[in-house]
């Protein structure tokens, strides 16, 4: 079996509230999977169940061939909690040295690990003096200890600036290339920057859809927007030639088309020749696609 993580028909109830219902999911070796959903969609709950911190109500989970939270699973899984927190009295280096010893690794790697996440200069300072982004990096450094087979990262890029975010995804790429699997959560599709192999969208505890970004784009079948700028004095003629469009106060003609009709419409516009001064084709944004899936339920 090549799967690092298999979740079958997972349901979690807190009293009468169903936080997760009938979720099935698998993550293969070397795959990077993004778990997307609003706050309260069940992302963190699912992660805590995978880590064995809370038990599932129903369903079966296999993590690296073992039960969640078992000694075998914990030895192979690394976790980055949302808002990573550490004891403020310890320095970054002392904290990482401690975590290294717990994983049976040599504590002398602490400096290297902190350097990998850009914290080399702050290693000797107490974590109490760190910013939120720096604490997040300490969290990331501890998740990188000892080549885990599965990385579970709860909103890893929150609190990181765009440059750090890019560095972070570069680190993940390296991990995935070595065969480690990554499950990370986020509340926005733009955050994952298409740097993942598969996207899973959760809404109110249900799995709405999963697939690559092109697959999701295709499945959502959201209209493509065309912005046609008419040439000097050709506005009326253009509107007549392209019925169904609406001309804005800026004189630009806006048209919507389905994915199938996209090329045909493009050909028609191109055929108008001199009448067209400029053309922009705007595919549905990541946010549009995400909203489409995460709001399908109950709206």
């Amino acid at each position: 079996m090549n799967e690092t993580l298999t979740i079958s028909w997972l349901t979690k109830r807190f009293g009468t509230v169903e936080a997760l219902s009938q979720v099935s999911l698998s993550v293969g070796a070397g795959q990077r999977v993004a778990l997307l959903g609003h706050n309260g969609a069940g992302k963190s709950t699912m992660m805590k169940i995978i880590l064995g911190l809370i038990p599932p109500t129903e369903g079966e989970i296999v993590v690296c061939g073992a039960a969640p939270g078992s000694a075998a699973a914990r030895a192979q899984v690394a976790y980055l909690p949302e808002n990573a927190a550490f004891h403020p009295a310890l320095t970054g280096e002392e904290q990482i040295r401690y975590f290294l010893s717990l994983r049976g690794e040599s504590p002398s790697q602490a400096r290297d690990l902190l350097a990998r996440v850009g914290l080399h200069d702050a290693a000797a300072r107490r974590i109490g003096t760190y910013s939120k982004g720096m604490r997040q990096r300490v969290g990331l450094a501890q998740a990188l200890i000892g080549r885990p087979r599965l990385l579970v990262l709860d909103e890893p890029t929150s609190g990181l600036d765009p440059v750090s975010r890019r560095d972070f995804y570069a680190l993940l790429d390296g991990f995935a290339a070595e065969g480690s699997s990554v499950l990370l959560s986020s509340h926005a599709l733009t955050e994952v920057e298409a740097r993942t192999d598969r996207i899973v969208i959760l809404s109110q505890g249900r799995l709405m859809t999963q697939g690559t970004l092109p697959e999701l784009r295709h499945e959502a079948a959201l209209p493509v927007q065309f912005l046609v700028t008419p040439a000097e004095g050709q506005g009326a003629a253009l509107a007549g030639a392209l019925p169904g469009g609406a001309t804005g106060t800026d004189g630009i003609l806006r048209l919507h088309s389905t994915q199938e009709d996209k090329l045909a419409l493009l050909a028609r516009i191109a055929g108008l020749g001199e009448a067209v001064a400029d053309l922009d084709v705007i595919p549905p944004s990541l946010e549009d696609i995400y909203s489409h899936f995460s709001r399908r339920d109950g709206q």
Partner: protein
Amino acid sequence: MKAVFATAGAEFRIALRNRWVVIAVLLMVVFSLVLAAAGAAPTGDVGVDRLSVIVASLTSLAIYLVPLLALLIGFDAVAGEVERGTLPLLLTYPLSRLQILMGKFLAHLVILSLAVVLGYGAAGLAAILTDARAGAGIPALVRLGWSSILLGATFLGAAYALSALSRRPSGAAGLAIGLWLLFVVLYDLGLLAMVVADGGGVLTTHVLPVALLANPADAFRLFNLAASGAVGAASGMGAAAASIELWKSATSVLIWPVITLALAWAALRRVTP
């Protein structure tokens, strides 16, 4: 074992930074030296060496101070981790909850031991320097030392159990102070009231000894005073206390740490992060 020592190392460092080590050692040294100085007065009359008298005074000090120190050092152990949000991450590491508990316990016990050894050591040194016969009291001082550490271990376990049950540092602190008042102050007052009301009846002869052994602080006092043969003089417990054999109080002193640590483990296992 490596995980336990790594945890203990981190905990000791934290206690050092939070100045718990300095506070514990200073408190024990200062109070012990004060007692050593004050305890010098009755020496000539009683006819025992100066250190034996000081040990009797130190026993009374230890009953109040050692449990208090242990509770103060230990109350944050679980609740603090829960409040800071550091517990979930720690629990995903390959170490058991028992190992976490043992690591913290080891670090805190080292701090308490340091305070006890340095405090009693200072008092012992002061006595030996001023009284040539004080060497006779050294066995009693050593006995007081290790039994004080066991008393501290008992209340460390109790502090962890309360910490795991309350899950909030403020709540755990309140419970810890309440426990201290109950076992160290109110319990004895209750027993005293019982003895006075009973007037030497069945309660005094049969219930009192059991009640004394059931309280780790009272068992600690009985053990040390009985062992040094000074029950009547120093404790005021009278004949009932004197009738309790040494092995009984020794057993109570030895068993209590195991009981409270087992309770702490049970409470920690029930914590869901």
